């Protein structure tokens, strides 16, 4: 349990109070924070979009059903890994949910091991996704901190131009370009020219538009 951070939250949506109660208890004793909802609508209302979370979701729900909720979450770009849990899941349904990006598909009654494994995996996916999202955000922030001249120089570097060419295009001496590059390396926190190139590629800088 030491591997589980208390910040990890599992949301469970099921219309059956007995099932909600049992699933919630099972995941809580394994160290997760759990919050339960008896409908998709209640979940959309009550969830915390910032929390590091995954969703255990019953397919058949009164009102908005599980598959519909999955689509809504994708549309709002506030996605989280979804583990579908259903009593009478059939193959077409699981294919549909998996294709739509479901993390897992379990049939009731699911064993604790399966459920724990699925939640663990979903949490790991979510962390990776968050890290990926976090890196991109950082780079964007650093890029925004560059001066317009530095941005021009970075674009030219990313396009593979030599210092001499850049100086010619910008109408400055080569020494000034070198100075700008040093500043850019510092501001973008790139440790080498190669890393800076990777960052530029990630930010889609220097490509012909």
């Amino acid at each position, binding site marked *: 349990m030491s591997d589980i951070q208390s910040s990890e939250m599992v949301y469970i949506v099921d219309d059956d109070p*007995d*099932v909600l*109660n*049992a699933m919630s208890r099972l995941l809580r*004793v394994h160290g997760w924070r759990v919050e339960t909802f008896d409908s998709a609508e209640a979940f959309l209302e009550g969830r915390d979009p910032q929390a590091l979370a995954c969703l255990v979701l019953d397919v*058949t729900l009164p009102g908005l059903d599980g598959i519909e909720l999955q689509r809504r979450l994708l549309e709002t770009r506030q996605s989280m890994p979804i583990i579908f849990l259903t009593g*009478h899941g059939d193959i077409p349904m699981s294919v549909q949910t998996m294709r739509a990006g479901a993390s897992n598909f379990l049939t009731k*009654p699911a064993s*604790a091991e399966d459920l724990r494994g699925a939640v663990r995996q979903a949490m790991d996916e979510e962390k990776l996704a968050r890290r990926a999202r976090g890196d991109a955000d950082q780079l964007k922030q650093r890029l925004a901190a560059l001066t317009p001249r530095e941005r021009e120089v970075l674009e030219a570097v990313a396009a593979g131009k030599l210092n001499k060419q850049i100086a010619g295009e910008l109408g400055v001496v080569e020494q000034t370009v070198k100075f700008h590059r040093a500043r850019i390396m510092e501001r973008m926190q790139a440790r080498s020219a190669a890393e800076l190139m990777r960052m530029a590629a990630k930010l889609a800088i220097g490509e012909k538009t």
Partner: protein
Amino acid sequence: MNWITISWPMLAAASLSLGLIELRIGLAHRSLARFVFSLGAILMAAFSGLELAFMRAQSVAEAAALLPWMDAVMGAVVASLTAFIWVYFGTGRKWLALAPPILFAVGICADLIPGLDMTYRSITGIRTVQTFGGASFSVLEGVSNPWNAFAYLGGLALLVFVVDASVRLWRSGGRRRALIVGGCVTLFTLTASIQSALVDLGIARIPYLFSWAFLAILVAMMSELNTDVLAATKVAAELKESERRMDLASVAAKMGMWAWDIGHDTLWATRRARMLLGLSESAALNLEHFTNALHPDDRESRRLALRGALSSTDEYEVEYRVPLADGKVRWISSRGRVERDAEGKPLIMRGVVLDITHRKQVELQAEQDRSALWHMGRVSMLGQMSASIAHQLNQPLAAILGNAEAAQQILRQEHVDLREMQEICDDIVRQDQRAAGVIRRLSALFKRREMQLERVDLHALLAETVDLIQADLMTDRIILTNKLTTGLHTIHGDRVQLQQVLLNLIMNAADAMRGVPIVLRQLMISTEATDNEIRVLVVDHGPGIAPEHLTKVFEPFWSAKPKGMGIGLAICQSIVVAHHGTLTAANNPDGGATFSIAFPTHRAA
């Protein structure tokens, strides 16, 4: 040989024969009148014999010895004649009836004194009287005894008594009897008395004609008695004939008849009725014998039917079983009616019993076939609900598994939270009971059984039914709404069969809406209570029923669905009809169809 020696023995023999015949009949019928009559006739025969001996006496001593005997027998004849009229008419006055025998008895007392005789104070001689036809007879000569007046007074008293009793009988309606018996007794007693007085006085030279007179009386009385016998024989014959006809009718109809005298608790039953109930052919019966002949399980319903008939104007009508020696049963239909006195108190109950075993077997077979068909429909319908059934069971199983595994995890920890463990155990028990409940309800649907009537709350049944099918409805994205009446919603019915109908209608509605856009998939179930019926409506928003199919949907083996067997709605309708209700289908003005079940309220529980 002359007419006296021939006729007197004949008179005696005739009287004796009449007496013996009546004695035989009197003893057989325990008839006092006939018994008294026969006594009189036998005494009369004895008197004739004595009289003949007297007339043929050759000496004074011989004749004189017979006199007290003749007086005594004559007295007895008068006494028995009086008694006969008393018994036979029933209208005589007691003090008048006592007078003739008492007066005679007083006269006879004279005979008991030695040397004295009632008729003669002294006897002087005997002489032979020549009469007509060449016959002769002896008479005594002597001085008349005034005691003899008692005999004449006795005769007079008898006349007065008979005339009085006859007049009274005439007035109370027994005219024929009064005229023939009373008239004859009066006429011949009078004739005999006058004639004997004339003989005694020596005016008439013919023998005493008491024997003739009394034989005439005997014949009159006997003919009257026998008129009754003849009438009774005729009535008996008619009764026998009518009984035979009734018997024939009841045998032809295989019907037994019974009548129960309620006050005395005695039961009369025909042979057929006794046979049908397995009772002895002749033993006296009461209600308990009848009751004990019934199958124990049917006694209560019979008792209720009997109570109903006695306490109201209802006809008695009940069906019950009679166990037979070979372990089979005979089904009996018993019907009857209570007859009451002017104040309405039940006096007697008459009715018939009929063997309905064959009809009942056919009915039972038809009922079994029908329940088998219904059961088949139910099972095939449940087969289509597998998703819902799995869901119903998986929910509690998932909860139980989750709780049990949570408990295992808790037990692995250093500090075990006992309160949480307690909660887990409670939850598991509850969820297990829930699963058991699901299985119980399902197995009730799966089980093949006879119709079992009970009070059914339609709203509770609807809720349970919707629970059962909910998962399928949700899978099909069907939204279910209810509009339930606040009025009466309980009926008397078989809950499994009613649930079958509701399930079938809901599933049909769901099937109908599978092809329409999700937003239109609205199913409404409502109940309505009116003054005379309770209705359950299942309203869908599918494509509706083609007008030309509206009359066909309830036909067996007709289906609008490509894979439908066409038995669902036919079964639904037969179940509803078995509940005395109607099931109809109609299209809605705004699209879709409505199936409506209506149960008459007077059947409602």
